[in-house]
């Protein structure tokens, strides 16, 4: 019998596409590094969203073409951007006032671990002894809450969704939605509810690769894109 570890999972682009559905028209959105960065490519037609970056920019333009990179026009992930109309620049204190003050509507981050109560652990791997927190804790503390987009298990096959985080926390109870390459899981701070599963996967299989108990939604369905 084929092990679950070898079973086909969704590509990162599909995870990003599923997250993109969560972005309302007109929303101000902050995307973290990794799968979250891809989300901007899949915003449903007819919706306009405005990207915020901690580097001090609102309404980020697309990634700059090769040879057109401007060191004075970057996002927080280290990408060079194009200049577009309606873009504005501000200092770091204001950039984070927007986050903490609840003016950024949707935040999408990657993570090392997410707990059953929505704790986020994404800034430090304990074995390194030192970590880069960057803006992650501010984003986690932002009034909007956090959507996590990540692989369901780590590179050793260990669950990233766990009862209690073992890695240093970024924020407590801040995650309200988890989208992985296997599932869409809602988090209300008390329990994790499995809402959608990847094609070909059963809720029971998803549970086997999850380190926390999942409540299976009565209307659980296949990924809806």
């Amino acid at each position: 019998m084929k092990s679950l570890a070898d079973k086909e999972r969704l590509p990162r682009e599909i995870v990003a596409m599923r997250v993109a559905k969560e972005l309302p028209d007109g929303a101000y959105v902050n995307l973290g590094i990794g799968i979250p960065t891809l989300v901007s490519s899949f915003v449903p037609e007819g919706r306009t969203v405005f990207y915020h970056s901690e580097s001090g920019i609102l309404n980020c333009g697309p990634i700059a073409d090769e040879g057109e990179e401007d060191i004075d026009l970057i996002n927080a992930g280290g990408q060079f951007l194009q200049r577009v109309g309606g873009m504005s620049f501000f200092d770091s204190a204001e950039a984070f006032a927007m986050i903490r003050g609840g003016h950024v509507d949707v935040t999408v981050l990657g993570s090392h671990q997410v707990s059953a109560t929505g704790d986020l652990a994404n800034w430090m791997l304990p074995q390194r002894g030192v970590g880069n927190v960057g803006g992650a804790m501010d984003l986690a503390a932002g009034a909007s809450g956090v959507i996590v987009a990540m692989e369901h298990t780590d590179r050793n096959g260990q669950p990233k969704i766990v009862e209690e985080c073992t890695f240093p926390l970024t924020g407590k109870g801040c995650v309200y939605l988890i989208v992985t390459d296997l599932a869409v899981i809602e988090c209300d701070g008390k329990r994790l509810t499995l809402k959608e599963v990847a094609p070909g996967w059963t809720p029971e299989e998803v549970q086997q690769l999850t380190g926390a108990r999942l409540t299976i939604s009565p209307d659980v369905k296949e990924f809806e894109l």
Partner: protein
Amino acid sequence: MPGKPLDPTAMARRAAQELTPGAVVALGPGIPCRLPGELPPNGGVWFLAESGVVGFQGLGVDLNVVDGSGEPVALLPGGSFTGVVNIAGILRGGHTNLAILQPAQVSASGDFVHWTTNATGATGTTNATGTTSATDGLFAPGSAVDMAFGASRVVAVMPHQGPAGQPNIVSQCSLPVDGVGCVDIIITDAAVIRVGPTGLELVEIAPGWTADEIIAITDAPLTLATNVKDMTFEVPELIPPNKVYATAIEALKDVPEGAVVNVDGFAGPGGMAHYLMVGLRDVGVKGLQLISNTAGIARMSAFGAPNIIDHSILVENNQVAKATASYPVSPSASRPSAFEEAYNRGETELEVVPQGTLAERLRSGGAGVAAFYTPTGVGTLLAEGKETRTIDGKEYVLEMGMRADFCIIRGHKADTLGNVVYKGTSRNFNPVMATTARITVVEVDEIVEPGQLGPEEIVTPGLFVDRIVLRPPDFSAYL
């Protein structure tokens, strides 16, 4: 018969003698607002209006450019506009050398009651005649409290007596005070009185008055200075101090050992003062405590290149004792930065601070706010040992404001008064850090004359900037 009281213009001219070149001066409503009109409009001092004007002088006509009394004023070349929060920060954050106020009462220990709108609501009529009165039950200090507490020195300019002949200088204020022990010197229409540790001292007398006459209309003990002078009314010549330094080394040679130095550069290379960094390395001062978003990762990140100048040049020169940063190490553990290697060898200390908390700690430090409660980091390693408090059912952690000895920032253009504009995302921490240091040094691509930067375009008003260095056109950010 006592002498004739001085008119408000004469009082304002005497107050102008308290100014020094380059001083930042906050003016309260009333007689103090006459002061700028008495000086040559050369930008020798920075007049602040709590309405959001930095650098005005004399009367204007534009109703969008008004002082704290609502009177139109003329913006000087190099003047700029900012928000009220920033004005309050300039006042509280120790950036204001002098506040000139018109109190209704000053006590023997320097307490004051601010002049307020009188009961008929007729502001402006009082300052025209120079009479003044406080109104019971109308506690309306406006910005006077921020001015009095924030400024290094407070000058009270006021009539010696109220309209009904009641003394305005008293042993103890008879109305609720707006500031305790704030006033340093009182300039009236009859005398100049210093507020000393042991009480009031008469130092100057207006023409036609005698010391006894002044004592008679002062309701507080008044001693005579050893050398009581006649009041004079010449205004000083105030030449703006030169802020332009020839080289980075010239601008940084007095950085002391162990100095706290703020360095911008979000992650580099944009926003990083590469030329000043090389200057700081060449000055060679040790034991530096850097406050910065990263501790030098431009060489390791997608932003940079292996040979780009970043904090690593200071680390490799054994100059860094501590870094306070949000993103201190390379994104990749397998490619450690110079700082991480030094840290792992035990040669440097590290304080990791969330990026938004870092920005806000700098902003508050620069604005004179000692600490603040933030939700960021609650329940994490970075909040361990810190005070927390639940407000409206949500938990917050107390974070302290931060200041520095020196600050090295990167602007795009500056004028010779130190006003700075930035380019794109290279703004980030620069304007915030500029407010935090005893000495702020800016590196720019171009230095222009005052008036060549638009007043709405200026991000960092020149009063925050002490030294300006031109990045040499042939300077390379790569080693």
